[in-house]
């Protein structure tokens, strides 16, 4: 496997459950050593895709490689070098922190289990809680344990499926620091999330909806590529104003963020003209800016919905 080869490359990946197509001809390429954000609303096919990448589900169509190994035939080789953290905590509640890590180290065939578990516990700050049962850990600590377990065999690729769901901000920040440390040491991290503040931390973002890819680009380029323009409006009676603005044709979405309204549209000129009259209103402060990721994604979802409706 040469250095230029991506950590994951899949083409036309498709998975159906009965009549439902969970993943629909998805192609993507994850460069090595990056944090790859895998975004999409609930039920968009993120978990199914991740499971196919590490051999837990068999694709109905398509092919791909992970770390240079075929995802269809070389599942066991992939598993040896991939760390996978499931969406739901899936270690043993009745085992202690150390026992869980010991177990995982043995499952991965680590030669010096004790040394490796000690090292991982020190790295993730779990040493003080070694004897605590997993069932007694809080959400943040469970997540930390799960991350430590998925790193027990020093994988080259880490697949994290909504790792920060239900975790408090401090624990999330700590978690992301760890993720940045990992990529700094050369590990590729694919992380699925629907938190926008986390999406911003990713180097590259792939956004899927209803099993189809909508965007796949470096995070920094996404707002520009979308062509979406957002106006931020501050002032009194924002809720009434929002209702009013939604009726304007060039306005695609209006969302409230604290004391501001984000008003977005694809046609920058038309949007500016529609909003012109509001500029003169008293107390209103209007500012044009680049669209945020959230606006972009909501825009993409709605576009995809329209496309699907037209196709039908």
């Amino acid at each position, binding site marked *: 496997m040469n250095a230029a080869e991506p950590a994951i490359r899949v083409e036309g990946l498709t998975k159906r459950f009965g009549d439902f197509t969970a993943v629909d001809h998805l192609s993507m390429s994850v460069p090595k050593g990056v944090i790859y954000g895998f975004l999409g609303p609930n039920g968009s096919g993120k978990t199914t895709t991740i499971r196919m990448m590490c051999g837990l*589900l*068999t694709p109905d169509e398509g092919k791909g490689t992970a770390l240079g190994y075929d995802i269809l035939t070389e599942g*066991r080789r992939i*598993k040896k070098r991939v760390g996978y953290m499931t969406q739901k905590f*899936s*270690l*043993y*509640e009745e085992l202690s922190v150390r026992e869980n890590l010991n177990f995982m180290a043995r*499952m*991965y065939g680590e030669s010096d289990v004790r040394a490796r578990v000690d090292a991982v516990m020190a790295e993730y700050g779990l040493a003080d809680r070694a004897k605590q049962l997993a069932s007694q850990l809080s959400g943040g600590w469970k997540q930390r344990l799960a991350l430590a377990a998925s790193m027990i065999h020093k994988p080259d690729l880490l697949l994290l499926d909504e790792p920060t769901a239900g975790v408090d901000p401090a624990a999330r920040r700590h978690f992301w620091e760890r993720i940045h440390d990992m990529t700094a040491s050369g590990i590729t991290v694919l992380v699925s999330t629907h938190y926008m503040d986390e999406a911003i931390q990713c180097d590259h973002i792939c956004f899927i909806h209803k099993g189809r890819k909508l965007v796949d680009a470096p995070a920094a380029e996404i707002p520009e590529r979308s062509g979406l323009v957002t106006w931020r409006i501050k002032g009194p009676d924002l809720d009434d104003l929002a209702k009013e603005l939604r009726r304007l044709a060039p306005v695609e979405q209006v969302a409230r963020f604290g004391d501001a309204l984000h008003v977005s549209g694809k046609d920058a000129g038309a949007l500016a003209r529609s909003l012109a009259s509001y500029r003169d209103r008293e107390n209103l402060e209007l500012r044009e800016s680049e669209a945020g990721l959230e606006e972009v994604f909501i825009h993409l979802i709605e576009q995809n919905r329209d496309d699907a409706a037209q196709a039908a």
Partner: protein
Amino acid sequence: MYSFSRIFAVLKKELVQMRRDRLTFAIMIMIPIVQLTLFGYAINTDPRHLPTLLDIRDDGPFTRAIVSTLHTSTFFDVTGVVGSAAEGDEALKTGAADFVVIIPEGFERALVRGERPQIVVEADATDPVAAGGPVGALPVLLERALSPLMEEAALAAPDPPPWDLVVHRRYNPAGVTAYNIVPGLLAVILTMTMAMITAIAITRELERGTMETLLATPARPMEVMIGKILPYVGVGYIQIAILLIAGVGLFGVPFTGGLAPLLLGATVFIVVNLALGFLISTLARTQMQAMQMTFFFFLPSILLSGFIFPFEGMPLWARWLGEALPTTHFIRLTRAVVLKDAGFTDIVNQIWPMLIQLTVITTIAVNRYRQTLD
């Protein structure tokens, strides 16, 4: 204040949940039907048509009358003739026959002379209830067979009968029910715990999501299965030890056989049940469903296996069903080894059906087992 609408809300929710869990619903409906069929049609504590062998060492009209009466009796099914006492003993030991009727040499002559000759019946009395009916019917049957001939020959009045009926209640002469129940219990308890524990241990991993963690590791499914099942094999042996010690110590069950044949049989039986638990785990999605399925299997294993109710008392269809259950064969095996001193050669007929069941169960289970989450 109790709110009727709140009670109704809970009730309605409960009914919806019940309807959504198809398996539970099916089992709730099936259990009364199955119980009714088994208790109503299959179970009969007054068994008839018990396999009987004849050991005839005399010939003449009296002997022939006895043989023909036995043939027409509903209690006995004469399945053959043995040439020696040893052959008869072997048949009783392996369970091929429940009774051996011996008419000794010179029976007719002795009868005519009024010497009260013996008619010996060797009965397998491991199940005192099952053996009771036929043994009780014997004097009447013999009288019916022999009296007309006696009258014809103008011999002595038939009261007391001019013959001596000797019944040897083999293996359990005192008719202690516990002797029959304890070895059977061994099979029943193993059936319940082994199948249920494995089924639950596997479905628990599925239910809690830890199966996904296991599947994401490079571990081979067989490694996981063997590792999961082995501890329960150990549990099975501990259960056997407890039951044997308690059976002998508390109930005075005579352990006549060897430990080795029992352990061989137990090992096969434990493996069959673990395989069954494995199969159940591929069908059930939750621990609750696994338990219900085990129970559904457990019911016929108690009722149709000859554990409480005599196997021979059941109609043919129920006996076929019983033959298909591993428990039936292991109950026969434990009773044979514990009470009848059966050795390796005597239990072959119980071992091979279990091996066939093991093959069938394992084949289905392995075919159903998925190495992925598909």
